[in-house]
């Protein structure tokens, strides 16, 4: 008994030892817990995230691009994208078949993708709402949706070359979209899709996306629309290969319109050939020909080497420079300096250039900004080709003086002309007025470079001489109704790289000018590539200048400075922007009544005449031959796409279609009178 009681002590000792042992074990576990849960927490957290959730990058909402009147030119709209989690799909065969049918995909390739042992594959990105609804209705397991954003250009081709386009990942690839990509592009957003160990998704979170900045362009959509229409019409009429037109505000350097033909629809840029997408106005070089004579004249005037009424010896229309003969288009003998410009005499101009000398001519070429990028906010602008003076041949000073042996961009030429219109101050042409954040604060405002390159007196003298070109010279077809205008024609033979000679059949016909002369509000440059059979700038480009300058001046509400006594049929269209119906204001300038152009409506009885009769009524009321063809927009509702397309083609309306099915909405409304060529937007459902 005693022994047994004593034995308790032995047992208790052992119990104490055992307790100690187990406590040490417990402390080890505790230590490991601290290590794993506290010290290594971040590492395991990351490890857990890697296996528990999947990140899908979703493109951000790009900022909107507006024209100067805040009309939307490019904006991002929500577009559903469809992805699959292949392990969740029950019947891959059926899923692939159904999806391929609805989304118009290749069923074999789709089945292959859906069979991959992956947790995420795109089925199709940025589908239409109708497609998404149809896919949802299938109720397939393992097929999921995320909302992405898609770039939309609501006006189709309008200002395509300026805007450029953005690709599937909402990254700007061309034009302003590319140049301002950093500002426009918002932050990429991430959708977290939580998944279990078997790869099935059960939850998702999407962080709200930050939007990119908005852009306010200098473009005026109304002017742009008319410029594009006139240019397209001109290219068609003159059977030119391509054409460029630029409208600048000479005082601010703002580009009001910039158009190229051929053009493309940025909504479907991938389908357009490079030929159509290239922004020729800034990328292509051409020899400006006679338009470039303004540089020679500016140099001579500024240097005090020439008075406008001074007589220049024109040598009967030919001059020999270092063995090369340069001719005029017809023989001239003695012309005043003014007449040299008006008649575009090469010989007279070369005589003046010889006074100026190679050195000073080179200086002025540089001052006018040739051979150097203007710095307009577009990618891929060409520098131009201006050979340094040490590489000039003895004939160069003459050739360059008349716009040969030199490569310029249309924009450089337009900016040079603008400097003369702006009393000798060269202003950097630009497209972006302001970058604005979503809350409306202006992040960046345009600060164009300005340089005085001529004295105001020389600039004004030259402007007056250029007015003579339009009044009496080669540019008479550029005369405007109601406005004075100045400008210079150019007809340049193209250098044929194959024959290494100037071609006799390939010309660039151009006209650059401004109006009104006393207080220029617009500078317009028109250049047509390879027009035929007429090919001179005066015949081909000057009339286009006239049409463009007139609509631009009207759009800007510039009061006329000429009382030609010629009644003017004026039309004012409000560019049809999103949500508002297109409106047509129609009126006639009343003869000699007032300084300002006044619009008065037709008598009510005549307003509802059918299109052609109405145009005739307006024409007769205004006693003018120039009636713009008007058409009445038909009622498209309930018709199919094909029928609507055919009707539009027949009556000359451009059409932008959205959706599919039957027409449910249209803009402008049925019955509205519009100018032929106006764009109709019809929504189908």
């Amino acid at each position: 008994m005693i022994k047994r009681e004593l034995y308790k002590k032995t047992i208790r000792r052992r119990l104490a030892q055992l307790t100690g042992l187990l406590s040490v074990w417990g402390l080890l576990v505790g230590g490991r817990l601290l290590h794993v849960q506290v010290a290594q927490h971040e590492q395991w957290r990351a490890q857990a995230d890697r296996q528990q959730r999947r990140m899908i990058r979703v493109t951000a909402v790009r900022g909107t691009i507006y024209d100067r009147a805040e009309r939307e030119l490019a904006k991002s709209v929500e577009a559903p994208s469809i992805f699959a989690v292949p392990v969740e799909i029950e019947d891959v065969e059926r899923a692939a078949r159904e999806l391929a049918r609805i989304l118009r995909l290749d069923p074999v390739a789709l089945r292959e993708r859906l069979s991959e042992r992956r947790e995420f594959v795109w089925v199709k990105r940025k589908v239409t709402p109708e497609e998404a609804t149809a896919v949802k209705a299938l109720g397939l397991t393992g097929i999921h949706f995320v909302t992405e954003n898609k770039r939309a250009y609501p006006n189709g081709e309008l200002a395509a070359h300026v805007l450029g386009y953005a690709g599937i990942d909402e990254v700007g690839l061309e034009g302003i979209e590319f140049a301002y990509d950093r500002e426009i592009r918002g932050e990429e957003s991430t959708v977290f899709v939580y998944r279990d160990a078997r790869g099935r998704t059960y939850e998702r979170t999407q962080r709200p996306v930050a939007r990119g900045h908005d852009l306010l362009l200098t473009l005026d959509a109304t002017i742009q629309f008319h410029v594009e229409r006139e240019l397209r019409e001109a290219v068609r009429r003159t059977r030119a290969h391509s054409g460029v037109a630029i409208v600048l505000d000479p005082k601010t350097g703002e580009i009001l319109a910039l158009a190229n033909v051929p053009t493309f629809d940025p909504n479907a840029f991938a389908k357009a050939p490079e030929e159509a997408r290239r922004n020729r106005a800034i990328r292509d070089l051409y020899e400006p020909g006679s338009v470039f004579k303004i540089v020679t004249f500016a140099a001579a005037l500024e240097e005090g080497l020439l008075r406008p009424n001074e007589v220049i010896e024109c040598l009967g229309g030919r001059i020999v420079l270092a063995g090369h003969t340069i001719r005029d288009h017809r023989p001239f003998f003695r012309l005043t300096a003014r007449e040299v410009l008006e008649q575009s005499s090469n010989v007279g101009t070369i005589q003046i250039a010889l006074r100026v000398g190679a050195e000073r001519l080179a200086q002025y070429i540089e001052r006018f900004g040739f051979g150097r990028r203007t710095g307009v906010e577009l990618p891929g602008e060409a520098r131009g080709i201006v050979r340094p003076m040490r590489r000039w041949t003895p004939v160069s000073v003459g050739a360059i003086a008349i716009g040969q042996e030199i490569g310029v961009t249309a924009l450089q030429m337009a900016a040079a002309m603008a400097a003369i219109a702006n009393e000798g101050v060269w202003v950097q042409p630009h497209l972006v007025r302001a970058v604005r954040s979503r809350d409306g604060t202006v992040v960046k405002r345009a600060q164009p470079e300005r340089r005085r390159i001529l004295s105001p007196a020389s600039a004004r003298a030259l402007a007056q001489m250029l007015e003579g070109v339009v009044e009496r010279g080669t540019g008479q077809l550029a005369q405007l109704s109601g406005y004075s205008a100045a400008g210079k024609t150019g007809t340049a033979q193209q250098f044929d790289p194959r024959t290494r000679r100037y071609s006799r059949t390939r010309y660039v016909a151009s006209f650059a000018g401004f109006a009104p002369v006393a207080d220029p509000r617009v500078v317009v440059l028109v250049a047509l590539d390879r027009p035929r059979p007429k090919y001179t700038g005066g015949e081909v480009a000057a009339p286009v200048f006239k049409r463009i300058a007139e609509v631009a001046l009207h759009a800007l509400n510039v009061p006329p400075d000429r009382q030609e006594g010629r009644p003017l049929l004026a039309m004012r269209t409000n560019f049809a922007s999103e949500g508002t119906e297109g409106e047509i204001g129609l009126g006639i300038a009343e003869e000699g009544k007032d300084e300002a152009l006044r619009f008065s409506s037709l008598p009510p009885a005549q307003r509802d005449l059918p299109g052609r009769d109405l145009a005739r009524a307006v024409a007769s009321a205004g006693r003018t031959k120039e009636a713009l063809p008007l058409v009445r927009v038909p009622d498209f509702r309930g018709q199919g796409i094909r029928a609507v397309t055919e009707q539009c083609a027949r009556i000359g309306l451009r059409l932008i279609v959205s959706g599919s099915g039957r027409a449910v909405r249209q803009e402008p409304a049925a019955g509205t009178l519009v100018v032929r060529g106006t764009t109709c937007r019809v929504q189908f459902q």
Partner: protein
Amino acid sequence: MLRAQPYRRTSRRASRELAIGWGEAERAPSREMVRIGDKVLFPLAIALALLGIVMVYSASAVLAAERYGTQYHFLARQAIWATLALAVMLVAMRVDYHFYQHPRIVALLLVGTLLLLGAVFFSPAVNGAHRWIRWGALSFQPSELARFALIVFLAAHLDRRIPAGIKRFELTFLPCALVAGAMVVLILFEPDLGMALSLGLVLLVMFFIVGVPFRHQVVLGVGALPVLAWLITHVNWRWERILAYFDPWQDPRGSGFQAIQSLIALGSGGGTGVGFAQGKQKLFFLPEPHTDFIFAHIGEELGLVGTGLVVLAFGIFLWRGMRIAWHAPDTFGMLLGSGIVVTIVMQALSHMSVAVGLFPVKGTPLPLISYGGSSLVITMAEIGVLLNIAQQARSDDV
């Protein structure tokens, strides 16, 4: 045969109530402890069981919904088992622990256990192992009972050999090793190496407590190690688990998967956890989040706060349990009590050690918390026995 054992009781009253043990209620309890035995252990056990129910639910809801169509499948069963376990514990508290010392009771317990262990081979296999006997919607794991039976047998047998017989190989070591060996072999055939190992460990611990000569235990070790080595190396997945223990990243999607997932659960939980029911690892990353990896699951959802509290709770359990064994009125009580405490604490530590990567992966439930009826009922019964020992502590010792 049934020789009276003169010093096995501390009070006459207790001796009168041998094998009946229902008399306490009539007695005026001198203090609270008389009824619940230990004022800390009793609420602690209940608190852990309640935590278990809650965590089993959060761990198993998704699993249950997928497997059985209702998220409450495991919750409901665990709650029923817990109620049953509580009742069993309350009964065990009232049964004088000397009841288990009676040779006939010991024999009955051993024979019953061995029969049940044999019977599992006639019930259908679950996951390739015969561990359960199904009875309607409920299933029972006889190996859990086997451990209790072994503790009772060892406590009774070793107590009888005190003091002189302990050192005699044929009287002490041999019979104990044979009984334990029989159970271990049967359990190995289920197969359930983890449980077999823990039974072996019970034997070693009890030998250690009563001071069986070290050389005898060496014999046991020398005999067992080659068998263990053979068992591990000849069953592919066991060997892989051992390899994975040393380098889980060797095969993170295969053999190392469970170890890594457990660490991810604990580690991502961090200090305060991802929140109750917010855990992601239970979505089929953690294998058996409601049983074998419930500690990792607690670590994920409740963080270090949760795991720390659980570790602390078992620490307190060890302290109070050992205190009861220390103050037990007789050596049988000391052996029985300490056997129970050490078994439960070791099992808990093994479970946690697997979770934190100290041990290779083996399926050990966390006592009182993990899902599993048999484990819960037996553990609560054992705690009931422990509390009965506490009730009988000699007042001069307390």
